[in-house]
Each structure stands twice: as C-alpha cells, then as structure tokens.
C-alpha cells in the first residue's frame, strides 16, 4: 500500500496498566498539511505523539514515513527521519543560554558561533526574533516557545509536532504563531497540531483527527464543521454548562492594595503593585500566560508568602503577615494549581490530605492531637459531596486520577464554607465532566455569597464564570473590568499584547 502521505499510522495501540491509551489509531498526514489532533485531556493525544517522536514504543501497529517503515526507538531516530516536536511542557534548561539549549536539541550542531548566527537568521526569517546569548530562565513563556520552535526549524523538519502550543500565548502571540505555521506549511512542512481549542483548529487546520478514549472517532475537515459539532465529537455527550446566576454582589470582602512580592527563586516572577477588590458574591477572573506571577499571587493570598500587612485587607483587617492557618480561621481559603505535592501530598491518604487544610475550620484536632476519626469523616464528606471516584478515604492521593483529585482538593476547601475562595487553574488537566462540576461548584460559592478569585489560563473558562476580569502580565495586574462585553482583542491587550514578539531587538542581536 503506497500513499502520498508523509506519515501514515496504521492500527497503533498502546496500553498502560488499567488504561488503553491508544486503541488501533490510524490516520495520515500529507506533506505541507496542517493536521489537527483533537481530543479531551486523557483522550490519548500525548501518548500518540510520544510514539511518533520515539519516546514510547507502541504495543502493536505500524508507522510509515514516505512509505518506508518507521520505528523510531529514540527521539534521536525520529529527528533523523525528519520528525521534530515542540513540547507542551517545555523541555528547556533554565540555567543554560538560548544557543546551548538549541544545540542540545540538535544531533550535529555546528560550532557555537556559527549556530548563534543561524539562530538569529532563522528566527528573523520566521518572524520570531531571538537573542542566542540570553539565559532561557529569563525569557517569557512565549519566547521560550520560540526557542523550541527555532530548535526544530534549524533541523529542517518534514513534520513538526506542536503539543498545545497556544496554552502559553496571548491572543496576539497566537496570531503571530499561526502566520509562522502557515509559512512553514507553504514551504512543504507538515504540521501535526494538537489542541483541544476548537476555534483555533477551525482557523488553522485543513484536516482534523478526533480522538476519544484512545480511539479515532472521526476524521474531518474542521473548516466545514461548527465548533459545536467538533465539541460533540470530542466529548461524545452533550455537556452540562454551568449556569451563571448573576446574583447581587455585596460588601467588599477582600481588598488588595499595592501588593508587591519578590520572586521565591531565581526564575520566579516579581509581583508589582497589585491592587483589586473583591465583593461578596463576585467571581473575579484573572487571566494570564503561565509564568506571569500566578503562583506568586496565589502564595501571597493563601499566606504561604508573607507581604506587608496592609497589602491584603480581609473584611477590613490587615492580614498580609498572617500565615495560611490564620487566614483559614478568618475564612480566606485557597487551592493552588499543582495538585500533587502542593495542594495534596501524593503518598498520603485522603484522610491525611483532608487534615492538611481542614484542621482549623473543621476542628480536626484537640490540644495538638489529631482526631483521626473526625478527619476521616471529613474526607468522606468531601468524597461524597464531590463525587470523587476512589476506593475510600484511606487511598493515597497520588492514586487518584487528575480530575478526581482536583475535585477532592476543591471540594475540601468548599466544604469548609469559605468567605473568600482563591483558586489557581481549577480545571487544568481535568476531563470535561469534572471540569463542568468544578466550575458549577465555584459558581455555587458566589451564589452563596462568597467572593471567588479564579486564576486561570483558560480564557473560555474565565469568560464563562467571571463577573469581573483582569489579567496578570509580568507580575502586574491590569485593572479589573466587567467581563460582559470584553472583546478578544481587549483581553489580549490586558494580557500584554504580543509582548515583544512582533518587534526585533536590533541592539540585543548585535550585542
């Protein structure tokens, strides 16, 4: 069987204990084609591209590149066959320079001086200017992605795999990236574009393969389908969308004034003069590309990092110096982004994880001694109320799926009836039904009269649940505005526009 396809997959299957990640996946990518791989979190997209890139070996099935059998044992072999990949979580080295990072991704890099010149040249040619001598740790998320892309382009790939590339970009930066990708496509480079963002795929891709629970459920031309059609293919059911009650907002609960915070580590973000206020019943959405101060803002609000007392007023009381438990006593609760290791201890049981934040408000200890029976009952209440799928409260948190653990983590705070609830990335990496349940729970809190701060990179999510909207950009927060009526362009500008993507820095390039 010969085809014109650059890459042809036939019956690829890969199973892990307890789950078949890919079940007989077949499709083809033509030279120069921008091909979408569409699917929910957990649909098997990552496993599939890892097989194509030589990181995972398929259990069965075959791949062909230019009609030749293709069985890459390593990424090195994949690159040798013309396959390059830009990772979702960047495979970059913060402490190394741009040119060193790029050299590491190449199999036969030229001498460093020559490489630096080529980086400057190629990055300009594709509208993604880059200074080879800068340290990667100092770059913005968009610039870091550029490093990955340039690294791939320097090897003249025939197929470029892009895994969720826009999750770290502002709308303006997305526009620039799409132009680059179209240019590559015109030059004959095939692109496998992985995303769950339907509008992007409809704007960019010529063909889409939709994965659900590891199986190909459809191959179609996304430009001919509506977003709704694609969503139903992807999810396989009609979704329960949260209902915005739009209740009245009450008195100011939380007032943040000129909050500044130095970064916790070398490559962290400094918070600069952040101010906003939050009323009872209000949902404030805070958008922003990853790495613009989200973690730091959550740490400042949860009490993990201390700030000047007056920077945070809770019901009029200056609590900037109060620790996490002092804030919990007062009714300010938080749920950080990273579930494993931050919001929860993976090796500990759900009972122990319930104690982790529930001790104070649920009175789970007396005179310093833990009342384990009570902690267990609290964990069971969370499991029950939030439909957490687990054998029981003694199961280790790390054994739960991402969505279930997230429901537990959010539920643990919500059952403590917060007055103000701050949550970072509530639905990151969570399946659609769990995400809908979590969003509904957040809205229920505001209906109850609590104030909620939702920090998220998912603009659709924020527009769906926020009353007011602001964006974090390099540690600065734009003034919150009513979410209703905001345009994508306005949101993009609040997020910092295209940063400096469209403008080259001649002075740095010649440094």
């Amino acid at each position, binding site marked *: 069987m010969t085809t014109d396809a650059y890459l042809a997959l036939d019956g690829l299957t890969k199973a892990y204990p307890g789950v078949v990640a890919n079940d007989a996946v077949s499709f083809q990518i033509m030279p120069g084609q921008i091909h979408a791989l569409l699917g929910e979190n957990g649909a098997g997209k990552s496993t599939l591209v890892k097989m194509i890139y030589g990181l995972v070996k398929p259990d069965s099935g075959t791949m062909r590149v230019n009609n030749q059998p293709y069985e890459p044992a390593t990424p090195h072999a994949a690159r040798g066959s013309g396959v390059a990949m830009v990772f979702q979580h960047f495979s970059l080295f913060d402490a190394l320079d741009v040119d060193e990072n790029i050299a590491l991704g190449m199999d036969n890099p030229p001498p460093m001086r020559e490489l630096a010149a080529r980086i400057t040249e190629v990055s300009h040619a594709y509208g993604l200017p880059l200074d080879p001598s800068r340290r990667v740790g100092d770059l913005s998320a968009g610039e870091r992605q550029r490093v990955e892309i340039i690294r791939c382009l320097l090897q003249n790939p025939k197929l470029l795999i892009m895994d969720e590339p826009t999750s770290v970009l502002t709308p303006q930066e997305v526009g620039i990236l799409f132009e680059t990708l179209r240019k590559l496509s015109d030059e004959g480079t095939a692109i496998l574009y992985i995303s769950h963002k339907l509008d992007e795929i409809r704007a960019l891709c010529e063909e889409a393969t939709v994965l659900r629970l590891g199986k190909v459920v459809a191959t179609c031309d996304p430009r001919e389908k509506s977003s709704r059609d694609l969503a139903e293919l992807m999810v396989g059911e009609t979704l329960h969308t949260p209902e915005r009650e739009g209740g009245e907002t009450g008195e100011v609960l939380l007032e943040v004034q000129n909050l500044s915070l130095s970064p916790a580590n070398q490559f962290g973000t400094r918070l600069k003069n952040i101010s906003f206020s939050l009323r009872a019943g209000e949902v404030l959405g805070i958008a922003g590309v990853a790495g613009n101060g989200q973690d730091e803002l959550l740490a400042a609000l*949860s*009490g993990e990092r201390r700030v000047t007392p007056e920077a945070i007023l809770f019901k009029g009381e200056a609590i900037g110096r109060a*620790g*996490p438990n002092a804030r919990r006593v007062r009714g300010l609760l938080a749920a950080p982004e990273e579930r494993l290791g*931050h919001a929860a*201890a993976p090796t500990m049981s759900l009972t122990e994880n319930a104690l982790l934040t529930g001790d104070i408000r649920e009175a789970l200890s007396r005179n310093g001694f833990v009342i384990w029976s009570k902690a267990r009952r609290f964990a069971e209440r969370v499991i029950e109320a939030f439909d957490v799928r687990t054998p029981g409260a003694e199961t280790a948190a790390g054994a739960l799926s991402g969505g279930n653990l997230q429901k537990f983590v959010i539920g643990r705070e919500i059952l403590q009836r917060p007055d103000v609830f701050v949550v970072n990335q509530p639905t990151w990496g969570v399946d659609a039904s769990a995400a809908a349940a979590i969003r509904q729970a957040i809205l229920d809190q505001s209906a109850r009269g609590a104030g909620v701060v939702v920090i998220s990179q998912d603009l659709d999510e924020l527009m769906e649940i926020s009353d007011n909207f602001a964006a974090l950009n390099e540690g600065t927060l734009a003034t919150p505005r009513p979410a209703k009526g905001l345009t994508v362009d306005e949101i993009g500008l609040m997020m910092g526009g295209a940063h400096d993507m469209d403008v080259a820095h001649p002075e740095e390039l010649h440094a």
Partner: protein
Amino acid sequence: MSLFRLEKRPAPSSLLSGLTPILAVLATMVAGGVMFAILGFQPLEAIRTIFWDPLFDPQFGPYSRPQLLVKAGPLILIAIGLALGFKAGIWNIGAEGQYIMGAVVGGGVGLAFYPSESPLIFPLMVFAGAFGGWVWASIPAVLKTTFGTNEILVSLMLVYVAENILASMASGILRNPDGQGFPGSRNLARDYPAASNPELIADTGMHWGVVAAFIAVILAYVLMTRHKMGFAIRLAGEAPRAARFAGVSPTRLILFCLGTAGALAGLAGLFEVTGPAGQITIDFNSGYGFTAIIVAFLGRLHPVGILFAGLLMALTYIGGELAQLMLGMPAAAIQLFQGMLLFFLLAMDVFANYRLRIGQPEVTS
C-alpha cells in the same frame, strides 16, 4: 524495551517496607559471610559467633547479654531523634558531636559539684547533658533557618569541633586532679556516687539511659501517629510545598527536629559517661552517633522499628567484640558489615516504592 522495568507505586507498600529490613539483614548475612570467607574465616562460624553466641552461648551469654541493652540504649535514643529529622527531610548527621557535647556539658556540671552527695546532682546533670546536645544541634538549626546554610555540612563539621573540645576538656579543666597527670576526668560511675548512672537491675544492663530510650520510643510513636507535629514532620518530608500550604512553619520544624535530636543525643552521651564509660576521656565516644544513622534507616524511621534495629545493631557490636576475641576478627570487619547492611536496606527500598515488572506491561482493560 528492557526486560525489567520499575513502575512507581502511588503510595509505598507498607507490607514491603516492613519486609525489606528483614530481607536486608538476610542479604547482609550472606554478603557478610562471603566477606568473612575472603578474610579467611569460616563464614557460618563467624555469623554464629556474631549473632548467636552473645545471647545463647553458655560461657559468654551471661557476660554479653547485659551488654545488649548497654549498647542498644544510646543507639536507640540517638536514632529516635535523628529519625524525626530524616522524616522531615532535615539531615542532622552530626549526632556524634551532640553526643560528645552532652557528655562534656552534663559531666562537667556534675564534676563542678564534686564531691556533693545531693540527690539533685544526677537530675541536674541529665538536664545539662540534654542542654549541651540541644545547643550543639541548634547551631546548624539556627544557621539554616536564618541564613539557609546547609545543615548536613554544618552538623558534620561540628563533630570535629566537638572532638577537639572534648580533647581540650579531658586534658584540661575536666582532668582528674588526682589522676597523676593522665588525661581523663574523675570516674563518675565509680568514684562519684551522686553523679553515677548505675545498673538498675543486676545483670540486665538496664540503666537510666536505657529507660530513657524506651520512653523516647513511646513518646516518638505517639508524636508521629497522633500529634499534629508528627503529621507536620511527615508532610514536610513527603511534600514540602504542601507543608507550607498547610501552614507548617519550616523554621519551627527545623528547630524542633534538630533540637530534639540534639537533646536526645546529648542525653545518650551523658548516660554513657556516667555509666558504661564511667569517665570523660579523649576517646570515650565510639561512633554511636554515626551508627545511629544506620539504626534509624534500618528501623524505617519508625519508633518501634528503631527499637528492634537498635537491638540488632547492638548485637553486631557485641558479636563483633566476641568474634575479635574468639576468632581474631578485625574490629573493622564489623563496621563494614554495618555499612553493608545500610546499603542493602537502601537498595531494597526500591521494591517498597516501585513495582518491578518483567517484560511488557500488562493490559487490564
């Protein structure tokens, strides 16, 4: 792919983590047997001399059985404290120095009142011993909490400093004025009844230090399983960010873990110089502070485990002495044996934390 793969377990298997110390001991006996054979000893005879004869030999048993508690007491006392820190990811490896300083400060306080007969002397010395160890361990603790200085290196450097202080004291202000100029203090156990730590029940080796070790085991067990501080310690070790999110103060944790370990090591030192060792000499310390690190790991950082591990390690000490006497086996062979035990234990830990899979992964759905 490869024939064997390790697959991370969501939570460590409690069955296997209880089993690995036993397997490690067995593996060490096999490897130790090989080592003894290389050294020219009959492996089985050597193993029997070390592990069986000290307890059950009709000739040596009566002498060596009490030694079991004498040696296990300080090991357990020190290891209990170290385990608190190790659980929390705080690496105090300078227990030997804290042990020395407990002995020097506690013994020094006692000697200052010589020849008092007050019954308050011994309790005062106990307190001073704990205080000496606590201060010594608090130096790395405070440096870590104030400046972020690495506690591993500081606590270890302080062992060498403590050894020099000990040398200076034993031949200086604590030297026995009636000792004809020989270095070393008065014999506290023999010549200073108010300051001595006698055998409480004849021929058992039971002295106040052993009592303190048993109490420490019980208190540590309660702390780790029932108290919020124990939970904070475990949390900080398993997931440091989650601990900060839970409101655990790293500063308090470091001061508590290092301070407690120092105080317990100091107590062990004080009970040693007032009892089994008898006097403060330049080399009264015999490396218990380092061996206790092995005891802590062998006991899975669990108080009850440490109790058994301490007894086992004490057995290797006594057995080693017996093997030295009976077979002419070098003392270092036992040290090596103890080191191997730690290696095997750490190596086998992998099976508690990871699943070993052979060949391709299984498909379950």
